[in-house]
């Protein structure tokens, strides 16, 4: 009994402390070092922050370069698929264009009316847009995020909204000098205050880690109010971070508590970062 315990101890000590010829550090040293890194990375000391930013800058750039061949292959693959579906796409787009032309007329009227109403309450919303390129969009099953090529040098700040053309895709959660990380709407940790229109109900859109999101924290049950109409979620602007009225997604017809995002997060190449400035002129 004592011998087997001794064997275990010897094997365990050997595993931890013994260095092989080509190993420069023992496992125990490196394990302690990694624990130290985990602890230190949570402190906001300036030196640690600078080291973190340095590591991020280097890693993101290197990853972008190393991923280039794989990205090229994926791009060619999607181009071939697009070519094969070109006629069907053309027919669908033609129909969609007709609908959009009709909607545009109504939208122009609503936009002017909205501006007039804001003038009446002496409030103006200014927003600046920064165009950014997606450097890394690796889809990890554990965290849905993308890396952009804009950072503090372009006056980016944590919390800014990121849109793909007009649809919201996420918010900035980490800013380095030349790049930044955006948490996508589909991530489990993403929570965005929205308003469901046309029923006018406030809610929160949460990510699920999958392709769709879910509607949470509504004041009352709204399934009965839907009545086969299309419910669209827009940012409510209640958090004070996002510009109100950015389209997020539409309620799924199968499950009224599920939201289908407008943007396809796998196809992001260029995005716009929106900074919000609400002025109350009273």
């Amino acid at each position: 009994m004592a011998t087997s315990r001794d064997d275990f101890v010897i094997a365990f000590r050997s595993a931890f402390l013994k260095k092989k010829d080509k190993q420069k550090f023992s496992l125990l040293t490196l394990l302690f070092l990694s624990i130290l890194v985990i602890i230190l990375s949570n402190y906001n000391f300036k030196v640690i922050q600078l080291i973190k930013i340095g590591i991020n800058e280097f890693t993101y750039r290197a990853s972008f370069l190393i991923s280039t061949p794989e990205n090229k292959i994926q791009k060619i693959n999607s181009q071939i698929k697009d070519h094969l579906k070109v006629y069907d796409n053309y027919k669908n787009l033609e129909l969609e264009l007709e609908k959009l032309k009709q909607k545009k007329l109504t939208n122009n009227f609503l936009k002017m009316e909205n501006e007039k109403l804001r003038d009446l309450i002496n409030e103006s919303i200014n927003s600046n847009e920064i165009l950014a390129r997606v450097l890394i969009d690796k889809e990890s099953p554990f965290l849905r995020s993308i890396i952009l090529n804009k950072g503090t040098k372009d006056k980016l700040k944590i919390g800014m909204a990121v849109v793909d053309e007009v649809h919201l895709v996420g918010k900035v959660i980490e800013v380095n000098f030349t790049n930044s990380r955006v948490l996508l709407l589909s991530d489990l940790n993403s929570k965005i205050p929205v308003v469901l229109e046309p029923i006018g109900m406030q809610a929160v859109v949460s990510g699920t880690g999958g392709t769709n999101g879910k509607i949470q924290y509504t004041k009352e049950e709204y399934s009965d109010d839907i009545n086969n109409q299309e419910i669209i979620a827009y940012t409510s602007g209640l958090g004070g971070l996002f510009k109100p009225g950015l389209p997020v997604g539409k309620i799924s017809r199968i499950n009224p508590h599920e939201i289908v995002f407008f943007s396809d997060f796998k196809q992001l190449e260029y995005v716009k970062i929106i900074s919000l400035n609400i002025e109350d002129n009273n």
Partner: protein
Amino acid sequence: MSSLNKNSLSNIIFSYFPIGMLFLSVFNDFDFNYLKIEYFSFNFAHILIFFWTLKNPDHLGYVSIFLAGIINDVIIGMPIGISSFCYLLICTATAYIRNITLSPNFINDWLSFLFIILLINSILVSILDLIFLIEIDYLKYLINTGFTFLLYPIFFFFFNFINQKISFRLND
């Protein structure tokens, strides 16, 4: 002369294969899910580290594994140091298995691998959820662990082939 050069070049390629693949996998963060199958994912780095630190640790240094973990955390966006810690725990387990094993057996290795990845993923999930308060999908981690375990034999035969090439060339 040319044949000597060719030999040394292929020797270099084979000897740096484990490190090259490890860094390529963490920088690229690939999971081979090109078919975009819902829920399908597996941890290639875990398989690679387990195999090479168990069978031929001279070709995959602990410092490289530590650095690869740091890079993986930065790319995925997890708190820095967690992946390094998990990767090094795999190394500890493989070093222990190496010390207690007299005659290596594939089934034993495979079952040990399951135990180790379940353990380190549990540690990882606990740290993320309880200490860093990051919301995570437990089911996805479980499925990831399952696929990593199931796909181990395929990579085992591939890596074993490379390992034999390396050993053969070194002894040649």
